[in-house]
């Protein structure tokens, strides 16, 4: 096994075993851990408190306890989080933060204190309308409220200097992530769809400073290799998240390259650059104000279609792959709007309805393979 494979395998191992990874990081850094529900949370403030932020993006859990609180037709990520919470998976966390981006999250916020009372929750409200300066000021006040709640929960003061340093750490992480998703275009075989996803996923369970250093090491090692080409469709992938692993394997098997993504779990976390002026808290707020093309925030003139078209053109993509999580309202409401725009520009769309926990991917295999056959026209 060469150096690159070793480094990649470590990330794979971490992405596949979140709890073990977090435990290892807690032992090696001496930090406590704090859970972060999707989609966006002020991780920088948690990190500034000397605590490890842990991304809570569901898992391969199919239990029955959650049915008492969340219906079976709700988002599989949220159901998995709740189930795992009730099963004691998150008992080691010092608390969690739940933002209210959708109806299911609002329901979880109300149910969590009853279902999992021993894991304390701090709620967080992002401004939906982000067109006025008041939105930024509201968000800043929310960050300060969260800081205060967190200080009380941890019995620890968080200094401004700690927040500034934490923000810098996260900015370095975001720069590295942007470079990483770009690098995939030159090494689509080594960084195939599954590996690409798993490396990004591993960041949820690691200390960001250490993770960034390791990711940079991996990228440098990869750059020493000759560039690669795969024979298959080049696509921009969009949606909430692209999981499970066997779903991503289907893309790899059919030679797809994810030339860019617009996934909430991936690039939406790090694609928006921070403004250069202001304090760390202000920069954090304006990053959210400046974020475009995300259905979890209100945009009167929806820019997601333009964003997808721009990505498709920039990377010469053959198509846009839509990963539609059942039954994610914000994503579903957005689809007809950007589909129209993509159709007008003649950009192919592969629409895939998925859940995080899927036992069978046979139908998806047919769609993904057929789409590849159609695009590549290698058979006809």
């Amino acid at each position: 096994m060469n150096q690159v494979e070793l480094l990649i395998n470590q990330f794979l191992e971490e992405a596949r075993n979140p709890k073990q990874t977090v435990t290892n990081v807690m032992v090696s850094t001496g930090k406590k851990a704090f859970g972060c529900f999707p989609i966006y949370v002020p991780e920088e403030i948690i990190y500034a408190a000397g605590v490890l932020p842990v991304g809570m993006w569901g898992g391969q859990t199919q239990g029955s306890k959650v049915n008492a609180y969340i219906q079976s037709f709700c988002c599989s990520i949220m159901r998995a989080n709740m189930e795992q919470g009730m099963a004691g998976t998150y008992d080691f966390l010092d608390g969690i933060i739940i933002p209210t981006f959708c109806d299911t999250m609002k329901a979880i916020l109300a149910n969590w204190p009853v279902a999992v009372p021993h894991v304390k929750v701090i709620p967080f409200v992002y401004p939906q309308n982000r067109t006025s300066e008041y939105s930024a000021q509201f968000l800043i006040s929310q960050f300060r409220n969260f800081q205060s709640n967190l200080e009380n929960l941890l019995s620890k003061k968080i200094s401004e200097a700690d927040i500034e340093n934490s923000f810098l750490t996260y900015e370095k992480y975001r720069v590295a992530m942007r470079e990483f998703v770009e690098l995939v275009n030159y090494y689509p075989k080594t960084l195939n769809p599954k590996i690409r996803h798993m490396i990004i996923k591993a960041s949820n369970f690691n200390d960001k400073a250490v993770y960034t250093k390791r990711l940079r090491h991996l990228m440098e090692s990869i750059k020493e290799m000759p560039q690669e080409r795969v024979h298959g469709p080049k696509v921009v992938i969009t949606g909430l998240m692209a999981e499970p692993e066997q779903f991503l394997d289907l893309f790899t098997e059919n030679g797809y390259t994810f030339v860019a993504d617009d996934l909430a779990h991936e690039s939406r976390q790090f694609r928006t650059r921070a403004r250069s002026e202001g304090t760390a808290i202000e920069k954090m707020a304006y990053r959210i104000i400046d974020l475009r093309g995300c259905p979890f925030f209100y945009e009167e003139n929806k820019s997601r279609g333009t964003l997808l078209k721009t990505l498709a053109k920039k990377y010469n993509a053959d198509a846009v792959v839509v990963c539609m999580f059942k039954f994610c309202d914000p994503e579903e409401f957005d689809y007809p709007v950007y589909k129209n725009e993509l159709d007008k520009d003649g950009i192919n769309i592969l629409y895939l309805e998925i859940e995080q926990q899927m036992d069978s991917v046979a139908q998806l295999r047919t769609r993904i393979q057929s789409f590849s056959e159609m695009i590549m026209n290698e058979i006809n």
Partner: protein
Amino acid sequence: MFLGIDIGSSSSKAVILDMEGNILAQEVVNIGTGTKGVELVLEQIFKATNLQMPAFKYTIVTGYGRMTYIGANMQITEITCHAKGVSYLYPKARSIIDIGGQDAKVIRLNVSGQVENFQMNEKCAAGTGRFFEVMARVLNCGINELSNLAGQGNDSVPISSVCTVFAESEVISQLATGASRQAVVKGINQSVAKRIVGLCNRTGLVPDVIMTGGVALNHNMVKALEEEIGMPIIIPESPQTIGALGAAVLAREKYINNLKNKTNY
């Protein structure tokens, strides 16, 4: 000789083409993946043609069970194979409605007969052959009898649910309130037709429209679908074997291309 095999969810099909691309034989066995269906259909077609596996220059397998069959040179999806099979028989075809045992697909072809767009039903069995199997069981008749039953009158009762489970309850309720079996079957056909139209609209239907798959044998269902889409539907002589035919046609093309490449080399 070239062999195309289509291992579906509820039936197995095989087609043999000769070196000139003429159909030599085609067979259907009504059991699909995970059973001895593929062995049986090959046994039948070999018996009918006096051929054995070594006689085939190239074999392509398609269908739901394609990933687990190891006797072929290549596996290709049923969408590409149906497109190839249909355009082999109907060069002017631009749309395909394929309703098989477990899924329903609508495929749009370009003028060259290549796949331009396609849509498949989701995991649920609504609007597929399995839906009709469940309904036939409730109505205490064979699946093959459904078409004749629907043709016995003009009445129909609405079956509003497209979900197989809910529709089953609805059918039982209709029968309990005195609706005739004929009217219920007609209602079932209309319900499925409405479901398929959704897929057609998402794909964009262009004539000539060809229907393939086992459900195409249900003439009253085809009629209900024609009324919904407002276009005539052409049914091939053997709608179940179109996927296998496409696989055989592709096998022949693949062999010829390989040969050309070798010669050029």
